[in-house]
């Protein structure tokens, strides 16, 4: 199973037999890996119909839906892990989605592309154009990434909202990089957060 580096980190740190909700699960690659290697009870939410069909074809339970609107009906703490990989920056209201994520999951994995990576900085600084990089390949008008963020933005957000961090991993070209310089050197960040427990949105 050849998982994307951020997904591989998530897969490595999910406990066997856990209940997992993968929000923005794509065609279900991570879910299938978790099911097959760790006996995980995985459920998914995915916007794209073709991806849902592919995931259902893998025997997975995936519903076609939108992280911005379809999380409210999941009971609090109904999953051991809620996973939001490479999806946060595409949400209309990322803060609300994070609230739901931390309500539904006892723990939550969040991964996103770091907009403060040096290549992005250089592209904007010297090119004066919205960066088009390996991890952010779309142009300004066709990108699904409507809420770009940086590692330091996310750290500040977690601090402001009192969210406990249980782990953080930073990736550059598929390899781990240091936490200290992550805001400049990391292309990708993966955070493991502690759920907000009894908080109930509805």
């Amino acid at each position, binding site marked *: 199973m050849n998982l994307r580096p951020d997904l591989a980190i998530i897969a490595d740190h999910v406990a066997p037999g856990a209940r997992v909700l993968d929000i923005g699960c794509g065609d279900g690659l991570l879910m299938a890996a978790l099911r097959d290697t760790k006996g995980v*009870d995985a*459920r998914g939410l995915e916007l794209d*119909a073709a991806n*849902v*069909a592919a*995931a*259902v*074809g*893998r*025997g*997975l*339970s*995936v*519903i*076609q*839906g939108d992280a911005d609107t*379809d999380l409210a*009906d*999941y*009971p609090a703490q*109904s999953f051991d892990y809620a996973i939001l990989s490479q999806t946060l920056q595409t949400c209309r209201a990322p803060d609300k989605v994070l609230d739901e994520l931390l309500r539904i999951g006892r723990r939550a994995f969040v991964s996103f592309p770091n907009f403060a990576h040096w290549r992005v900085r250089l592209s904007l600084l010297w090119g004066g154009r919205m960066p088009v990089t390996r991890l952010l390949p779309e142009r300004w008008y066709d990108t699904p990434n409507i809420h770009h963020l940086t590692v330091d933005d996310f750290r500040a957000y977690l601090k402001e909202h009192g969210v406990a961090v249980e782990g953080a991993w930073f990736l550059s070209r598929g390899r781990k990089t240091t936490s200290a310089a992550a805001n400049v050197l990391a292309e990708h960040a993966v955070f493991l957060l502690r759920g907000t427990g009894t908080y109930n949105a509805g």
Partner: protein
Amino acid sequence: MSDDQRFGPGRHVVLPGPLRLDGGGALAPVEIAYETYGTLAPDAGNAVLICHALTMDQYVASPHPRTGKPGWWTAMVGPGRPIDTDRLFVVCANVLGSCMGSSGPATIDPATGREYAMAFPVITIRDMVRAQAMLLDHLCVARLKAVVGGSMGGMQALSWAATFPDRVEAAVVIASAARHSAQNIAFHEVGRQAVMADPHWNGGDYYQGEPPAAGLAVARMAAHITYLSEAGLTEKFGRRLQARDAKSFGFDADFQVESYLRHQGLSFVDRFDANSYLYITRAMDYFDLAEEHGGRLANAFRGSSARFCLVSFDTDWLYPTRESRAIVHALNAAGAPVSFMELSSPYGHDAFLLDAPELYRVVTGFMGGGT
């Protein structure tokens, strides 16, 4: 194929009953006409129940004896199909209240020796499901690998999971809803009033004479519009005239769409009983799965360990996507494993019966999953 007379096409059984009904009474005996396809495994673990829609029947994958038309879901059910009869044992029974061999208003009431007509008890979707459970007992099928249905068949599939949670391993619910909306009830009421306004209806007592064909045809015409999308009707007929160059300035079927609807109405009365139409539409109107479970739909699925697969179609305005989503949300709240997709089709509600490759792909995947 086994020699067992319970299995095969064109089966009919009279079960002693009594079948206790939601309306308070009981029905005895209970006649059920059904078909089976494929071979029941020695452990009876490969049984799939197909539930049919309002005016469909047990002939899901074999020709209709009256019209000669092929089965109504041959693309879904058969050898090598998504519901593969090479490996699955498939049962499809005519629903209670219908007119293709199962107990309904046209059945002879043993107490009087005459057709029940309006003396037939008013039934519910859950009553239909309980009758199917009696049939499965007769076939020695304790658990269903899956229960599958579209439209009213989807309502039965939901009711199965809620009523017999220990007997259902998976449910496929296509273009359906967990309750009838005011608009759904309204359209059905138009149909019933059309039947009952026909003088031949005669309080339901017409079996010795002329049936209320005109009324039933109008009911079917009105209902048929709800099965199609506005865009689909426009594409198929537009404002084109029927076999003429100019408007007649009269009330013939000038427009192709009028001619089409009249044909739909007339061909329906040849194969369907008007009183059955009243009883089954009533059962659908009474359907409200949340109401049966303290007003919370999620409660209907609390005891179920079944996997669910829901599919809606974007142009279906009879049971629109939001109805399927409401079910999905309730299943999420109940913690049930559920898959859901909204498929794109120009055909409206009828899309589930027409060529729908994406639907077959999803059902194939779902039926293969979890094994």
